[in-house]
């Protein structure tokens, strides 16, 4: 059967056992640090010094690298080529006939790739180690709207089915003689018989799902309990704020130094 969109990979690791909000804070810190520290190398430093050790701890390093690679590499190649070669003025470090590779362009590309790596690894570190329902529970416990949490969880699990249905609709219409290859006008004409059934049948589904949800007392007012339990410690509760504070302080320092210089 179709799997959900969740990237979660269960492992027996201390990192996995941390409270979801702690992991959220760590990823938040990586994101803030990676994006906010500026320059060329800090983002990579964050990756090497923070993300990699944490990924090792959570035994998710291989999955992390495998997921980052197909995202970062295309960006890196296009950024290096475009920015490297197309930079007005600048310091050429390599000349190939009429074009030359500029140092500033390379620096720019490096900084951009660093930020991308930081962003993606922050997200992946969280997704690989935290089941979506645990994260949603952690948030709703602190006042996050249950309806939004429900939508997030349902979407993660239902979208693959949506994709499967789109494939079935394509099959059904092809079976009625619909040509989906060939000229652009033909392919555009093929859109309606593919999109409309998807939308209409989804509307029917939504109504039934709403009924099913009501039948489970979802709109009941009152205290809700949870089957899932989350382990939290007072250390983590304090640490979360400290973890978030670190990159903020570093960024503040950086600006202070730049202003002073």
């Amino acid at each position, binding site marked *: *059967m*179709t*799997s*959900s969109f*969740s990237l979660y990979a269960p492992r027996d690791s201390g990192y996995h056992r941390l409270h979801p909000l702690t992991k959220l804070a760590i990823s938040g810190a990586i994101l803030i640090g990676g994006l906010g520290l500026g320059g060329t190398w800090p983002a990579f430093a964050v990756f090497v010094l923070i993300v990699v050790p944490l990924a090792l701890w959570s035994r998710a390093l291989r999955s992390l690298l495998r997921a980052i690679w197909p995202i970062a590499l295309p960006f890196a190649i296009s950024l290096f080529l475009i920015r490297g070669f197309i930079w007005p003025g600048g310091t050429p470090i390599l000349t190939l006939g009429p074009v030359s590779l500029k140092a500033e362009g390379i620096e720019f590309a490096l900084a951009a790739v660093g930020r991308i790596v930081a962003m993606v690894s922050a997200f992946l570190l969280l997704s690989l180690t935290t*089941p*979506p*329902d645990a994260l949603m529970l952690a948030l709703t416990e602190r006042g996050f709207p249950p309806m939004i949490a*429900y939508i997030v*969880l*349902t979407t*993660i*699990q*239902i979208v*693959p*089915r949506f994709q499967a249905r789109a494939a079935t609709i394509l099959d059904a219409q092809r079976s009625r003689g619909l040509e989906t290859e060939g000229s652009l006008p033909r392919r555009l004409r093929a859109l309606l018989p593919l999109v409309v059934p998807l939308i209409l049948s989804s509307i029917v*589904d939504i109504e*039934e*799902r*709403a*009924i*099913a*949800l*009501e*039948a*489970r*007392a*979802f*709109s*009941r*007012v*009152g*205290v*809700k*309990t*949870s*089957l*899932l*339990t989350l382990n939290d410690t007072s250390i983590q509760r304090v640490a979360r704020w400290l973890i978030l504070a670190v990159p903020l302080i570093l960024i503040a320092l950086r600006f202070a130094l730049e202003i002073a210089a």
Partner: protein
Amino acid sequence: MISVRDLTYAYPLTPTAALWNVTFDVPAGQFCALVGANQSGKSTLCYALSGFIPHFYHGTLSGEVSVAGLDVPATPLAQLAGTVGLVFQNPFNQITGARMTVRGEAAFGLENMGVPRSEMLVRADETLALVGLSGLADRSPMQLSGGQQQRLALASMIVMRPQVLILDEPTSQLDPIGTKEVFAALARLVASGGATVILVEHKLEWVAEFADRVIALAGGQLVADGPPREVLNAPEVVASGVGQTRYARAAALARARGLVQPDAALPVTLNQASEFFAPRSLDEYIP
């Protein structure tokens, strides 16, 4: 347990009534089947008993619907949810997707009702055992087959311990195995004195096998109400598009051809048919 008086209902913007002066009572613990041709009002009646009519579908409703002492049209859905359970055709649309495991999905209703965690665990595991899904409790609900998902939907309702369980063609989209699994789970529920059951079904042989009583609808009106063997063979029911079990058809044909007694009651199950057609010993016939 269920009391319906002169229930008349029309969907919004529809001049014709989907239900017209429907009146019946269902005592607690009864397994009552609801039959009728498509669009005869069966699903509408299911919604009216569970409160989705009028709270979800609005429209115009007159008459009384009372379930477990609650005045359904006057009671908000959130309050009815724990008292009346509803299972319908499409297995997938009843998996809310709100939780990532089968056990979590089953317990979701209990979470919403604020049931303490320890109790939730016990009830969830108990109910999963009842429907035969214990081995899959930690699996993702999305990985289940249609029949398994329908059993999960059933479990998700049963776990809330509703006094009335309404099932609208629960096996329509299932293969014979899935159908058998759902009916087996229902049988276990009824045997354990679990609930009053209203079952809408086209598969007459299952109705004949399980139901204590059959109500037949045609054109939004109640046309027959009684034991399965009686209702499923009533001419007005057969003529209304419900059809007839093949056992009864064979028996009627045999009767018409003078092969059996003209006054013998038509069978609706395999056992009844076996008795009906059984070769008689000579003693019975020698005057």
